[in-house]
């Protein structure tokens, strides 16, 4: 988690790690991310982590499909960099073209290690439609593993869509992370005894399918 002194402590994924520099990719949502976005070089933030269980693929025989919605793309550069696989394709959907950026900014080498399919909801770039719609045009039998990162309705859609396939299906959830160390309980996964901050954020679809059907407890207290 990233502590913005006297403002907030925010769970952020590591977007990339290199030469003792940790990179974050984040979207301005409220006061915390806004303040963070205005900080300058030399200003101080606090770091707690890494928390939870990292998720990477480590099998050269597997083909991986990543589907990211919006800022859900944040952890993907690091995920690609650290994973081993046969093939990796990324479907990245955003609302407008302006939200897109070059995923290789942290490390040019990862450029050759994946293929990218873009989708915009306003049809300004790439496929015209949501990431989920783009997914439906992809032959799932080409893949062994699917990882979805993004808004909860998208995750739910992905889990339902692949339900009757043989894919190993994972989703990176978001719940309200307040302590990050398994004590406060605010990050719990509904209808399960899992905690996102310790057991997650990545879960198998079947572990969280009930949770996905319910109100996101990012908003519960």
């Amino acid at each position, binding site marked *: 988690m990233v*502590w913005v002194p006297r403002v*907030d402590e925010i769970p952020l994924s590591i977007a990339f790690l290199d030469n003792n520099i940790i990179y974050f990719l984040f979207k301005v949502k409220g006061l915390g991310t806004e303040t963070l976005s205005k900080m300058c070089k030399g200003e101080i933030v*606090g770091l707690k982590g890494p928390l939870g269980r990292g998720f990477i693929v480590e099998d050269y025989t597997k083909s991986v499909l990543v589907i990211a919605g919006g800022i859900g793309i944040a952890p993907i550069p690091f995920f690609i960099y650290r994973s081993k696989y046969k093939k990796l394709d990324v479907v990245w959907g955003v609302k407008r073209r302006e939200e897109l950026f070059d995923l290789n900014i942290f490390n040019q080498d990862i450029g050759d290690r994946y293929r990218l399919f873009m989708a915009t909801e306003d049809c300004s770039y790439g496929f015209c439609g949501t990431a989920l719609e783009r997914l439906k045009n992809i032959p799932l039998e080409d893949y062994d593993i699917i990882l979805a990162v993004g808004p909860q309705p998208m995750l739910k859609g992905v889990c339902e869509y692949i339900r009757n396939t043989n894919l190993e299906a994972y989703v990176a959830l978001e719940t309200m992370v*307040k*302590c990050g160390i398994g*004590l*406060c*309980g605010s990050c*719990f996964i509904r209808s399960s005894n899992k905690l996102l901050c310790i057991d997650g954020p990545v879960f198998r679809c079947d572990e969280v399918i009930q949770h996905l059907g319910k109100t996101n407890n990012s908003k519960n*207290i």
Partner: protein
Amino acid sequence: MLETVVATISLRHPVMNASGILGTHREHISRLVSYGLAAVVTKTITPEPREGYNPPIIVELPTGGLINAVGLENPGKNVIKELVEEAKKYSIPIIVSIGGRNEDEFIEVAVEADMNKADAVELNLSCPHTKGYGVEIGVDPKNVYSVVKAVVSTIKIPVVAKLGLSDRVVESAEKALEAGAKGLTLINTIKAIYIDVYSLKPVLTNIYGGLSGTPIHPIAVRIVYDVYKETKADIIGCGGVVNWQTAAEMILAGAKAIQVGTALMRDPKRIVEDIVKGLSEWLETIGIKEISQAVGLAHKV
């Protein structure tokens, strides 16, 4: 050999969680049960839902232990029904921790716990960092008496009073018992501050927080020892229990059961198992058959 009875509640072993570690949602209860605890304690519940503070709310300290100011975040008394139901599903005793700003609020939540057949209530008279809800009540033995008395007179299930470190903690304990408490939980966290030396600012959003974990253990043992010496009450020892040795110290000082909070942060199942297993091996080593016979033994010097 580890069976124990505290505040009339029978436990298969002496280890429960401390209030505030999970315990606000149905899902938390089943998770706590999976840790292997002999009873579960809910987060402190207030009549109405409370939002609590913004993060940072819990921070690990470089000098050991944790500091927290969660701000008694909880969904309000209506959640008690589902928490008790869930515990009953696993046939595990459940103690509802209660917070309030005055006698009426305590009673209001206690009645809810009583109606739903919780096994006991634990009155949190000692939260060191939430204004109006905590130490203000616990440091004054008169207040302790009146809150405990009010609750005891209203409900049928046993009442446990949770007290913190204060100058007159023994007196407060005596008053709680006099008012009809069946047991005492000792102690809560100790008021503290952690300052970040780079940003030059207190780290917790609330500035003040409660210190927990190993740092407070020798202080908690002292309070258990003092209160047991004067009252021989049923005591649940709490504060810095992280392994069987720290648990055994509590028992020797006079505790019949113990609660574990901070230590559940890492590998909670193993921690609980280690304490439970360690305690039985310890009893064998010291040649004692029943844990009840070890309670308060350190007083024979």
